[in-house]
């Protein structure tokens, strides 16, 4: 009797053990032949007309010819605004795709959570892979605490838009790409005037030039790399602030609006590359800026810096839980380092490629300057140097909060009179408290 009982017990134990192991195996290796990709519809640069699906479909075609057994799937219809929430939900539910696009504002959270796979081993172990094909500025955007977690796929540098018509009217030459704050200030000062003599200003130097742009071009960042303290007490920071204040003063208390720019009343406006790409060609160009000729150049350099500007990036990473490591890595590589796919970035999106070779090729230039009228052509070296010198801010956990707070404090400071050193000291105290949370 006892024997039968014991045998029954062992039987149950055995069955449970088999169930346990098989369910774990099913969970981890159940679906080896499908590679899931996370992608969104529309553009993350807040411009119309971008669809990533075409790039992805081309990449899938190319990938499936190399891995005939693997089927690549992606969910359509996730809007770029909902993408971060969608991805977070998938991660919570444990159903995140093997490969997914990473917005630069999400990158830090995903890397610190461990949701993104650390790519150091794959990067180091892959002889075909050479990170020198990327601009080092964009490649660094995928790094967290010294390790690579994602590879860049697209980037979007900030450039200065110049109203050529207005400058010509005032007899001013369009500045070179290595212009400085002084050049910028001088032009703005001369251009502000009441041209039709109705007693109201109707020509302005610049619109939307922010303190942050000044800071970047003066060789400094608002917060340190690890996001633990602010750099407000640095000489370069106060220089930038003073410059913005001086520049603001040239508009003589008139609040310049985007409408003024659209009407051709403003000489300079910082724009992202994707804005340029969206509004420059037909038909957007007709709709938005019809009254003037314009071009873009790099941002002006501060006394302690050079012609740097902020840049954002879209990256591709893989889930740390993926069981198809090699497949996923190959797919990430295909999206980011394949020149054919990267060329599609210019065809199907408004962003710029992250590959040096693509950005300096004649094909790309032809493509970019197609549809653009007159001499508003983009210069090959402009894009190359702007991306190379782009600054991608480290989006640490409190970045948004710290940035918003700093921005509002500085805006009120610029509008009002006050002692800059006291202000900066107080601001540093406030912001460092947020950073140390």
């Amino acid at each position, binding site marked *: 009797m006892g024997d039968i009982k014991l045998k029954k*017990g062992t039987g149950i*134990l055995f069955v*449970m053990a088999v169930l346990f192991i098989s*369910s*774990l195996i099913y*969970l981890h290796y159940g679906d080896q032949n499908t590679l899931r990709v996370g992608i969104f519809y529309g553009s993350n640069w807040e411009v119309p007309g971008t669809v990533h699906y075409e790039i992805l479909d081309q990449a899938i075609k190319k990938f499936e010819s190399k891995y005939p057994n693997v089927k690549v799937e992606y969910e359509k219809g996730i809007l770029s605004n909902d993408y971060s929430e969608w991805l*977070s939900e998938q991660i919570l539910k444990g159903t995140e795709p093997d490969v997914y696009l990473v917005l630069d504002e999400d990158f830090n959270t995903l890397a610190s*959570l*461990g949701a993104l796979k650390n790519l150091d081993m794959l990067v180091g172990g892959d002889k075909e892979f050479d990170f020198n094909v990327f601009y080092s500025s964009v490649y660094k955007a995928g790094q967290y605490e010294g390790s690579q977690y994602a590879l860049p796929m697209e980037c979007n540098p900030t450039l200065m838009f110049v109203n050529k018509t207005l400058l010509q009217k005032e007899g001013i030459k369009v500045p070179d790409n290595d212009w400085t704050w002084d050049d910028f200030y001088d032009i703005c000062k001369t251009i502000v005037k009441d041209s039709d003599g109705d007693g109201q200003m109707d020509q302005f130097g610049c619109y939307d030039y922010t303190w942050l742009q000044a800071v970047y071009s003066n060789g400094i960042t608002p917060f340190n790399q690890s996001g633990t303290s602010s750099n407000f007490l640095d000489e370069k920071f106060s220089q930038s602030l003073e410059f913005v204040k001086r520049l603001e003063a040239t508009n003589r208390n008139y609040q310049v609006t985007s409408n003024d720019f659209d009407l051709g009343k403003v000489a300079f406006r910082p724009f992202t590359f994707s804005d340029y790409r969206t509004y420059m060609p037909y038909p957007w160009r007709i709709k938005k800026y019809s009254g003037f000729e314009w071009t873009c150049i790099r941002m002006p350099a501060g006394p302690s810096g050079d012609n740097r500007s902020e840049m954002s990036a879209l990256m591709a990473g893989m889930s740390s839980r993926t069981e198809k490591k090699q497949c996923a890595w190959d797919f990430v590589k295909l999206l980011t380092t394949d020149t054919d796919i990267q060329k599609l970035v210019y065809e199907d999106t408004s962003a710029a490629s992250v590959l040096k070779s693509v950005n300096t090729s004649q094909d790309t230039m032809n493509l970019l300057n197609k549809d653009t009228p007159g001499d508003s052509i983009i210069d090959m070296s402009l894009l190359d140097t702007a991306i190379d010198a782009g600054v991608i801010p480290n989006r640490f956990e409190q970045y948004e909060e710290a940035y918003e707070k700093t921005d509002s404090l500085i805006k009120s400071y610029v509008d009002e009179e006050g002692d800059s050193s006291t202000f900066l000291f107080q601001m540093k105290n406030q912001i460092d408290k947020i950073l140390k949370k």
Partner: protein
Amino acid sequence: MEKRKDAAGYQHQCFTMMVLLNVIIVLFLTFTIVLTQYRVAAAQEAQKFIGTLKVMPERPEQRIIMVVFSLFFLCGIIYYKRKNEAEGKEKVLLWNVFEIIFLIFVLKELDMSYNGVIFLVVADMLIYVEDRKNKLIFLFIAFLCYMVCSYNLVTMFIPLNSFETWAAFYDWNTERIFLSVKTICEITNMVLFLIYIVILMMKDRRERERIKLLNEQLQKANEQLHEFAQEKELMGETKERNRLAREIHDTLGHILTGISVGIDAVLVLMDIAPDKAKEQLEGIGDTARRGLQDVRRSVRKLKPDALERMSLNNAIHQMIEDMSKVTNTKIYFVSYMEELEFEADEEEVIYRIIQESTTNAIRHGKATEIWIRISEKDEELMIIISDNGCGCESIKEGFGLKHIRERVELLNGKVNYQGMIGFTIIAKIPIRNKLTGKKDRDELNNLADNNDKAKDSQ
């Protein structure tokens, strides 16, 4: 006795409650976390919520599978160990290792938010730690593990999501209910564990007291036994003395009285009627001879052993017969010698060897057949006693074997044993001038017979 049973019962109840409570807590925490994972996603608050997490949460299915199966195996092992308590130490150790592995699985899946399961496993393993000192050391290590495995400590080195983070998703009231349920369960578990330890320690102490008491009783009984033995020895001595006295009185006394009275009569008759006196003396002679026979018979009766009553050959046969009858063992005795007659001390040794060996074979070897062979070669007597018993791999000389060796060595002989197949004893004894010995005895016997005859003829 009744009290001890109670303690064991309470201990068992306490442990069962701990098992149940831990299963409930672990399942409660696991399902709360997993459901929260889905609810956060459904509420479209994932992006905000993920910002509060320290590390990417485990897949919900994975967490459930790991916890449910680990709990099942943990309880299964505990139940199995208790059902089969008689199993060897190595097996228990192996089970304990598995138990710890599943414990680690559970702790890991709960992100160390609840480590009371450690108490359950400690409570389970504690009964397999024997020594009191070891128990305390084990408890100390267990408490150390409990502290090391706490969320607050581990999270300093490895990022973990605390249960509080998950509970914080809900509104204040729900969060408070979740956290208080967890705290109450944790405290209850700890209290149950403490009760369990106290009961175990009390049971332990009681057991030790009982053993001490039993030891004392045994000591007492031993002393009594010793006294009884002494008394009995004394009684036996007295009884023997009485018997001796009775024999002497009955035989020697009677005869000597007859002889002394007869001699007195002869003294009177000697001068008056010498013929009559002669007749009388013959009568006294008869009486004396009869007396002598009586004395011999009495002395024989007083002798304890068969050997002293009969020849070695007969004594051995007698012993074998008795032994076979009583124990149902077949004993074969073969002598390759013409006669089995030796010096008294040699005969004694031979008899004892055979007696001891057969007794051993039956008692220890559980033999059913015993062969005894006696042979002689080069003035050396060889006795081989073998059996079909279970033998033994390593021979430990007990009392019996030691006696045999000592006796044989006194006669300059040698003893060998081997216990691989059955058990075999080979004793070799040099025989002390057998012929002379025999001659002497024959002569002595003859002499005695002659005397008897002479007396008879007289």
